[in-house]
């Protein structure tokens, strides 16, 4: 469709926990420089897609390619080493470690870059620089989300996966997080995020996927999806 090169693609993915299958043939791809967002009702399997990419759950069938390399059945540590970086929805910082220690842990797979990356992160998140010696558990929700994202960016990320980065945050913080996401993206990191706040998320995204019951329902550019009548009725309207 575009001339942009493809960073990651998920094709025909069937996956689930134990015996239960949750994803029934998902397809999605992320191109260089894009923000792609996945929305859908609760239980649609949005977060499960991210867990499948990370190798945290059983994959029955399908493929996940990162830079044309299949990463299905690769251990999580290796996947992260290859450049997929992930921020879970909740419980995403080590609460008893300081901010700086959190970031150092983020660099576990490439310790040689720790100092360089730390400087970059403090530039990107000046607030964190002031709090580097504070335990992450003592920070506010929005700041924790910043720590979590900075921690994820400590690896040489080819792509950043965000699981509901604004869940449970006040509107003020929500906007701040979305603008941070935009900044990270402008620095050259493609982002795949799962979101509940569909309208705002689609607003910053280049493209969006809508999942229902573990399968693709709609795909399109962010603007098109916001303006789509059916999408608006299903997901956006009820939220306003």
């Amino acid at each position, binding site marked *: 469709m575009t001339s942009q090169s493809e960073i990651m693609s998920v094709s025909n993915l069937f996956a689930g926990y134990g015996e239960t299958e949750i994803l029934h043939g998902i397809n999605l791809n992320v191109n260089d420089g894009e923000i792609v967002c996945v929305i859908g009702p609760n239980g649609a399997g949005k977060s499960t897609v991210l867990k499948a990419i990370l190798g945290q759950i059983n994959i029955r069938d399908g493929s996940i390619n990162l830079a044309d390399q299949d990463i299905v059945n690769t251990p999580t*540590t290796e996947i992260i080493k290859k450049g997929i970086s992930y921020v879970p929805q909740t419980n995403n910082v080590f*609460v008893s470690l300081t901010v700086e220690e959190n970031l150092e842990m983020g660099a576990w797979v490439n310790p040689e870059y720790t100092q360089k990356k730390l400087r970059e992160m403090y530039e990107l998140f000046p607030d964190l620089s002031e709090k580097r010696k504070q335990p992450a558990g003592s920070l506010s929700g929005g700041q924790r989300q910043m720590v979590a994202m900075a921690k994820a960016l400590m690896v040489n990320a080819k792509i950043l996966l965000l699981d509901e980065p604004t869940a449970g945050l006040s509107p003020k913080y929500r906007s701040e997080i979305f603008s941070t996401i935009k900044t990270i993206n402008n620095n050259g990191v493609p982002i795949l995020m799962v979101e509940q706040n569909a309208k705002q998320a689609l607003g910053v995204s280049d493209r969006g996927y809508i999942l229902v019951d573990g399968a693709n329902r709609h795909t399109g550019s962010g603007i098109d999806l916001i303006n789509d009548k059916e999408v608006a009725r299903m997901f956006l309207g009820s939220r306003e």
Partner: protein
Amino acid sequence: MWDSFGFEFVNYYFVPGLVLGCIYALGAIGITLTFGILRFANFAHGEIMMTGAFLTWTFLELSKLIFGFYFHPLIACIPSIFIAIAIALSVDRFFYKPFRDSPTIMIVMASFGMMLIIRSLVQVIWGPNQITFVKGIAKPNGILRDLSGSFDMMLLVPSKHVFIILGTVIIMLAFNYMLTKTRIGKAMRAVSDSPDLAKVTGIDVEQVIRATWYVGGFCAVMAGVFMAMDTQFIMSTMGFRMLLPMFAAAILGGIGRPFGAVLGGLVIGFAEELSAYPWFGNGPLLSPGYKSGVAFSILVVMLIFRPSGILKGRVF
């Protein structure tokens, strides 16, 4: 004041309490680390301690045989530390690792079994009877006696106790350095915080688990050797006897809190020794026969009123 009360209290109750507390603290570190990082109560921990003491005794005897004199136990324990760590790592590899993704109770059962296997093995090799670890009466440390005597506060502390207290302080400082300054130490704290997040952060959790056995094994051997130095004998049931006070210390301090474990160990050690002090009247507060019940009573009270421990550890 010092003559009538202080001398007796400090030399016969406080210092022994401190020594016992140090030993429990070292043992409790291993328990609280496995509790924090592998999320189970390791019943075999006391047996690693006991094995360390038996190995050290063997190396002491070997030194006598080969060099004609006994090494200091703190020298003879060095090879034992390596062997004990190797045992801890292979136990993990063959008996605990298969249960990493199973319900916790499976690995608890496995450790329950290891407790018996290791103890039986020691009993087969060294026999079930008590063995004298270091002969002779422990004389008070002369320098400390003269020095404190010149302040009219004479301390009659045997050299072995000086070694135990100083040794524990050094190990604690090193341990603190490791947890706060080294990469693997920080990763241990991270895994203890949240194993799931550690995994998706890319931390090699298996490597952290191995480090845990290194630290836990080392501290266990030191606790076992210190215990043997203190009581001057070793026996195969010493690990089991210490298991309960060590668990009590770990829970008292707050699970997953290494420094809480140290604090808990000291509290339990003092409580056990001071329970025999004649606080009221002439007789001991508690008959010495019940000394080993003190740790347990503290444990139960703690579990009921403040299960998260003094330092607000994790409640499972």
